[in-house]
Each structure stands twice: as structure tokens, then as C-alpha cells.
């Protein structure tokens, strides 16, 4: 994927990235009481990198979201999810029983902690989903010359 030679498209794509990401966070925050949530927010977040890749070339987008950063984020988001579930378990509740995180039996406090737990796992979902979507795009759209370099490195590793 080459960079477009249109200044307008490149400029607008670059400038719109923070707005898209802000909107992704907005969607994430609204997941609890309306349409939205971690999955949708994550996809929107990833789309900002896809836009960069489309407008400014594969390499530009990949530098903004490098594999070095995304690959650890993939399991990390799930770990946030599982970690909150396990924390609830360690706090004496069932797995994923967020209310138990409060450490008190007051229903009001438990209700609050239930919300915190829910938002926490949504954040985890968002991290994984956005990393997965961006990785999917960049891996599938990888230009032939990059692919050739990756293959060469792989073969050298095989020989070693």
C-alpha cells in the first residue's frame, strides 16, 4: 500500500486521528448504559490506525502502531479481564463477581464496585480488540517487499 500523493487526504487523515481515538473512548465509556462498549470502542480506536495506513502508506501506519507495541497488548487486555475476575475470586466472591471487590457487604458499596469492575473489563476488552483489529489489518495488507524481508529473516532463523 503506497502513500497517496494527495496532501489533503494525508493531512486530514493525520489530523483526524486524535478525534477518532477520543470518540472511541467516548463509546467505551457509554457501554454500560447505552449502545457501545469495549468491543465497539476498540474497533473504532483501531480504525484510526487503519486510516493512517490507508492514507499515508503502510509503513507510516505500522510505525504508529508497531508490532513491538501491539503484540504484548493483545494478551494484556485479556489479562486485565481475567485479572479482575481473579481479583474478585480472591476477594471471596465467585469468578467475575465484581461486587466482591468492594470487600464489604453494604449493597450500595457493592453496587459501586460492580460498576468499576464492569468498566475495568471493558477497558481490557478494548485494549485487546483494538490491538487485534490493527494487527489484522497491517498483517493482511503487508506489501510484498515487506513480506519478502520477513520471509528472509524467518528462513535465516530456521537455518540458525
Amino acid at each position, binding site marked *: 500500500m503506497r502513500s497517496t500523493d494527495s496532501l489533503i487526504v494525508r493531512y486530514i487523515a493525520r489530523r483526524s486521528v486524535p478525534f477518532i481515538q477520543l470518540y472511541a473512548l467516548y463509546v467505551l465509556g457509554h457501554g454500560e448504559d447505552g449502545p457501545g462498549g469495549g468491543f465497539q470502542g476498540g474497533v473504532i480506536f483501531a480504525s484510526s490506525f487503519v486510516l493512517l495506513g490507508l492514507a499515508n502508506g503502510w509503513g507510516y501506519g505500522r510505525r504508529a502502531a508497531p508490532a513491538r507495541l501491539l*503484540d*504484548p497488548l*493483545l*494478551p*494484556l487486555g*485479556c*489479562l486485565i479481564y*481475567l485479572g479482575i*475476575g*481473579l481479583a474478585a*475470586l480472591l476477594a471471596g*466472591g*465467585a*469468578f*467475575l*463477581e*465484581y*461486587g*466482591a471487590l468492594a470487600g464489604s457487604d453494604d449493597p450500595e458499596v457493592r453496587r459501586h464496585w460492580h460498576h468499576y469492575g464492569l468498566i475495568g473489563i471493558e477497558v481490557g476488552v478494548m485494549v485487546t480488540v483494538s490491538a487485534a483489529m490493527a494487527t489484522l489489518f497491517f498483517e493482511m495488507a503487508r506489501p510484498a517487499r515487506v513480506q519478502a524481508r520477513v520471509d528472509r529473516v*524467518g528462513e535465516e*532463523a*530456521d537455518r*540458525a
Partner: protein
Amino acid sequence: MDAQLPALVIVVPLLAALLVPLAGRRAAWGLVALALLLAFAGCVRLLVRAHALPEGEAIRYALGGWAAPVGIEYVVDRLNALVLTMLSGVAFLVALWMRRSTAREIRPPAVTGYYSVFLLMAAGLMGITITGDVFNLYVFLEIASITAYVLIAMGRRRQALYAGYSYLILGSLGATFILLGIGHLYMATGTLAMADIAAVFAREPQLYDSSVIRTAFAFFTVGLALKMALFPLHGWQPGAYAEAPSATSVFLAATATKVSAYALYRVAFTVFGVRFLETGLPVVRDALLVMACSAIVVGPLLAIRQHDLKRLLAYSSVGQIGYVVLGLALHNADGLTGSFLHFWNHAAAKGALFCVAGALAYRAGTTQVAALKGLGRRAPLTAMLLTVAACSMVGVPLTAGFLTKWYLARGALEAGQWAVIPVLLASSLFTAVYAWRLLQLAWFADEDGPVAEDVPWSMRAPSLVLGAACLVLGVAPLALPVAQAAAEALL
């Protein structure tokens, strides 16, 4: 912690699957082995606890603290404790076995990813087994399947890619049918929890005559038959087993299709109820009987013609899944006992045989049957493993396979299905034909030339444990009381 075990046996492998890519290449394998060891220990503990409970009760665990009809419930009873123990035990042994094998067959940068996906698949399979919610069953089924597609496609040859793809297409087709079955079930009963659906059936027996319920059961049967590669629907299976990396082959062949078979047992007996098989839709029961019997005969027949050891074993698995399903079609205590025994017996025997194939791939770089010649001289322990496991497949007395056939035959007589007996005998005969071919090559076809190195102990020891299990389960039938109790609990 004891109360949390049902969640922990799933969460620990899942957690490890996510930690493996972060841990880096050195710590990865240790993490895999540790997580699966913990899961195995938990499953054994669950098995003991489930058997201590009085008849008809089960260990129940409400995820997130939401009680059953609303939330998702994990249920451990005698049947799935048996399957869980088999699953986690085999997964642990394969994890021990696979370190050297994957180092030779998987590209170094992909090894941690392979371990991670392997753990995900183990967690998915255990999730299918432990869940008490039909939709959750579908989700775990898809987790296990998607990871299986990836694990297969990582094989060395390019055929692995196509094998993974065709499994993906047929597996997704099966999953879609299962999803439709769940939809029809929900449409008629308005609930997704297995125990709740069963309660609805008990309350309103006239539902058995509803076409929606019958459609649901038909969808479940076809979908799960596709997933477990029951005879006419086995198209994806030989390619998938033959082309996958050795470690994947061992794990898939020993566990994956059996878990789908377990899901069919769970749906047929716990959700729909044993009476539905008899009165609601007897035609499905008869169809399953025919499919199981044809699988038992045709599988070994197809295996005889193969030149690739892994493909040969894959076709033999097509036959062996027939034994697992036969009990469902007979649905009496002895038949079920036979099939439940086969969950363990076949896992041990087929696991051991695929370990031999993996050893061959490790040592000779090929899995052609011809590469077996001279195995008895070069690697006597591996050759003995091949002998024991093959005997168990044939059903020689004092091996585990014999018990399976004995109980299935008794169940068939009890059910008045005389035709099953010659089917079992014919299958043993055909199995003996290809087993003899393997053994003859291994022990009697000598080869001139230097004695090559055997596989390292890290591969030999776990496979010998599987081989020993074939003997121990046959001589001292440890599994028998467990399987009998599970069978009685279902009926």
C-alpha cells in the same frame, strides 16, 4: 480455594495462555507445563469430589455470582469429571512431550504463539466439558475449534494450510447447525441453562412432540457429528490429523473429537433426557446406531490402504469415534459404560500411537509407514509402545481396548442389537490387519545401516506413560467404577 476449583481449572490455562507470549521464549514451555499440571491436579480433585457426592447431585459453580437460569453455571458431575480428567491429563502429557518436537517442527519465532494457542485450545475443550449452559457450550466449542484450525495450519507442508481451511469450513458449518439447535431449543423452552431446560421438559412432557424440539435435536446431532467426524461426515479429519504438527496431532486425536462426542451425550441425556431418545425422535437414535456401526467398520478398512502413518491413524480414529457414539445409540448401562471407558482407553492408545508417529517425524523427518522398518532394533522402547497401543486398538484381552469392546458387546446384547456383534468382530479383524502391517515393519523388517539416535527422554517418558495407561486400564480396570457410576448417573 476448593469451592473455586470449577472456575480455576479453566482460568489457570487461560491465564497461562495469555502470559506465555509476555513471558518470552525461555519461560514459555515451563509455564505451559505448570499450568496444565495445576489444571490436571484440579480435575483429579474434582473427580474425587464428584464421586463423593450422593447419586444425582453435582458440583455447581455460578460464574459472577449469578444463579443458574440467568447466569452461566459450571457443573461437574460424574460424567464430565471423567472427561475433564482425561483432557487435562492428556494435555499435560502432550505439553511435556512437545518441547523437543515443536522445536524441530515449528519455526522458532512462532513457538511461543503455538504454546499460547495450544493452551487456549485446552482451556476451550475443558470449558465445553464443564459448562452447564448450552450457549456457553457453543462459545467454548468455537474457541476450541478456532484454535484447532490455527494449530493444524501451522504444519510444515503446504497441505496443512488447506487441511486447516477445510476443517474451518466444515467445522463452522457444524457450529452454525449447533447454534441453530440452541436457537430452536430456546424458542421452545425460553431458557439456556441445561438444568433449567431439563426441568421445562419434565414439567411439560408434551414438548417432546413439538416439531421445534425435534428440529433442535436434529440440528444438534448433525452439527456435533460434523465436529466429531462421525463416519459420513469425517471428510475434514484425515487431512487435519495427517498434516498438523506432531504435537497438535497427538492432542487433537486423543481429545478433540471425543469432547464433541461428550457434548452430544450431554445434550441428549442431560438436556433432552433419555426418554426423548426413546420416544421423541427414535429415528435419530437409529441413525446414530447405523452411523456408529458403519464408522467402526469403514474406518479401519480405509486405514489399511494408507501409506502415511499419521493418515492411517487418522482413519483409524474415524472408526474409533464410532465406539464412543455406539453407547449413546444403545443407551443402556453396559453400552454407556463401554463408551465412557473408551474416552480414556482411546485417548491413551491413540495418544501413544501419534506419539510414535511424532517420534518418527522427529527422528526420520517423515511419517511414511515404510520409515518404521527396523524400529525394533533402533528404538526398542518406542517399538514396544507401538505394540502395546496397537494391541489395545485391536482389543486384545488384558489391554484397555478389550474392556471397551466387551462392555459394548454386552450392551448390544442387552439392547437386542445382535447385528452389532459381527460389526465389532469385523472391526477388530480389520484393525488387526493394519496393526500387523505396522508391527511387522517395526520388528521383522530389518534394515542395514547405522543405529540412529532414539528420541530424547523428554519425549519418550510421556509417551510411555500413555502406553502404560493402555495396559494398566486393561489389567487393573481403574476407570471401570468411574465409567459405571457415570453411566448409571445418566440413565
